[in-house]
């Protein structure tokens, strides 16, 4: 699905990713943890194609294609999805309009017929039900006036509608209370399947109690310094990042 090799990336003149390697197979859920400033969010933005991040070395192969060569929207249309850490508020654009435009852009790219209003609504209702989200959300402007939890749920809802092959969830758990976290996690779990890969970026082990990953990696100073199974997350929770940092320094 995704193979990142020796990835180096910088913002302006500051290098952040310094030789990152990661391989994700179809259907796998990987979690990336690590202290702040390690490059977690940079990785998410580089994968989605944010233009102010420059890749200086390395490659990212997505389904055998050069991901870094694709435009932001091309990545989306090819099935890459980023759930934002800070979803953007877009006053004046209803969620329905936004989702329909996005879904039809993706469908058009894939050579599928665009959905008319009826079919679109039917599909949307199905997804709302799957994620236990109130239909009222559709009429509201995208993320405007949403609580933190609502914004994150809206990201997962968009993911459900766009049905990506590879989703990056950038600190989707940050700032959520336990109820909101459970709601978001159950949404993500409902979307897990053997073809869809997910990369969870998180600061807290807590999320991994609800979305159980196949692999856990520690990102520190721009590189993956440790990888393991879900137990690694528990170990990190117990010991903190100090021993990783000490190990990396040694």
């Amino acid at each position, binding site marked *: 699905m995704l193979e990142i090799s020796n990835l180096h990336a910088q913002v302006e003149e500051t290098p952040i990713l310094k030789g990152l390697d990661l391989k994700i197979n179809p259907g796998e859920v990987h979690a990336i943890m690590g202290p702040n400033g390690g490059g977690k969010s940079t990785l998410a933005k580089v994968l*989605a194609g944010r233009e102010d991040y420059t890749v200086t070395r390395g490659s990212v192969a997505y389904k055998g294609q050069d991901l870094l060569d694709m435009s932001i929207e091309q990545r989306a249309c090819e099935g890459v999805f*980023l759930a934002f850490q800070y979803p953007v508020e*877009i006053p004046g654009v209803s969620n329905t309009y936004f989702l329909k435009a996005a879904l039809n852009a993706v469908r058009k790219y894939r050579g599928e017929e665009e959905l008319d209003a009826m079919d679109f609504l039917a599909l949307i209702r199905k997804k709302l039900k799957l994620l236990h989200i109130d239909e009222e959300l559709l009429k509201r402007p995208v993320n405007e006036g949403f609580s933190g939890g609502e914004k994150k749920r809206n990201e997962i809802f968009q993911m459900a509608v766009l049905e990506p092959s590879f989703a990056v969830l950038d600190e989707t758990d940050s700032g959520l209370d336990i109820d909101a976290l459970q709601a978001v996690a159950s949404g993500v779990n409902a979307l897990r399947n053997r073809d869809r890969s997910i990369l969870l970026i998180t600061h807290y082990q807590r999320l991994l109690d609800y979305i159980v990953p196949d692999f856990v990696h520690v990102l520190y100073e721009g590189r993956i310094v440790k990888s393991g199974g879900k137990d690694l997350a528990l170990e990190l929770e117990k010991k903190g990042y100090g021993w990783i940092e000490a190990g990396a320094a040694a």
Partner: protein
Amino acid sequence: MGGELDHYRASFDQLQGSSESGTWLTQLRQSAMDQFTVEGFPTTRHEEWKYTSVKSIAELQFGVADEGRGPEKAAACRFSNASRTVSLVNGVMETEPDKSALPEGVIVCSLKSALQDHSELLKGQLGQVAKHDQNTFLALNTAMISDGLFVYVPDNTVLAEPIEALFYSSPSEMPAVSYPRNLYLLGRGAKATVIETFLGDHDRRYLTNCASEIVLQANASLEHIKVGIEGPSAYHVATIQVDQARDSRFISRSFSFGGALVRNDINSNLNESGAECDFQGLYLATGTQHVDNHTAIDHRVAHCKSREVYKGVLSAKSEGVFNGKVYVRKDAQKTIAEQSNKNLLLSPDATINTKPQLEIFADDVRCTHGATIGQLDAESIFYLRSRGLSDEQARAVLVRAFAHEVIDGLANEEMQTRLGQLLETHLAGEKE
């Protein structure tokens, strides 16, 4: 200077010569013409015209437009609900509106026939609300008063359906000017909606010099919607002047899409307590279009309220001007006045001059104002593109979202739809 104005004087003499002399109307025109002759067209040295040069209007020597013919019905339908639209071609009403559907006592007719049939209603009002000494274009319009739309709604009468007027300028060989003059009188507790659409479906040069005078008696309520879709080489200068009595409510929605040079002056005097006005405007300009909105809200007494939101989208080499005056007189305690002007500049060559101008002489008031000038938000564009929209689509969505606030604020859903379509047409044309 004098030479430039000679042919305006000739048109004026012709109009006066065809009217009965010595009446209040000919006196009004004469005094306005004297004013115009002294002042002539303004230059950019004039504070009110600092950012809007009307040199080309002064040089073009517009002749009075002939009667002309209206646009094809089908074309008119695109912009208005044809079944209830009153059309004025080159400032002259085509056919008198159907009276049968109107509630008792309501008058909707041409100003020309109102001058004959309802002179007593017009006499103390026409030229008294929009006083010609306040602006030289208004003086010229007043000197040339002959036709326009007259609406009278008696006390406690509600017009459920809007009155729609289509002001069409027909193509002519030589640059032509029309002078529509409208008067809307609403009695105590009366309520109405008036829609003025200015249309030119050709690229000939012409000038629309328009004025609307509005009197709202106690508790009256008027929603005034102005839609400007003048031709690409057109000049449009207009004054809308309102006098508001106790507890009256004036809602102004001004949409400016077309025209080479557009100048709107919208002014309301809050003369008695409890009066409220709500101004909203949307202006879109591209190419080398120049759009200038001047507004003035005069809080003359205590306990009045005003709200103003103007939004502009400027692309290519277009220029925008916004000047919003809010006066709060010494006795106007407990005034609430809010004003904002937001501009989106879509090109490095587009410009906006925005000036909120609050003059407050009372001390117990709540007044806010703000002006913003910005580009589309990069983070929002990234967000939309990350969901599959192209860069172009993402930008279009954000521009529409910005502009729609004013359209969505319209009470009438049909108008919302029509203006939404106009916005689409305009934005689509911008790409070409």
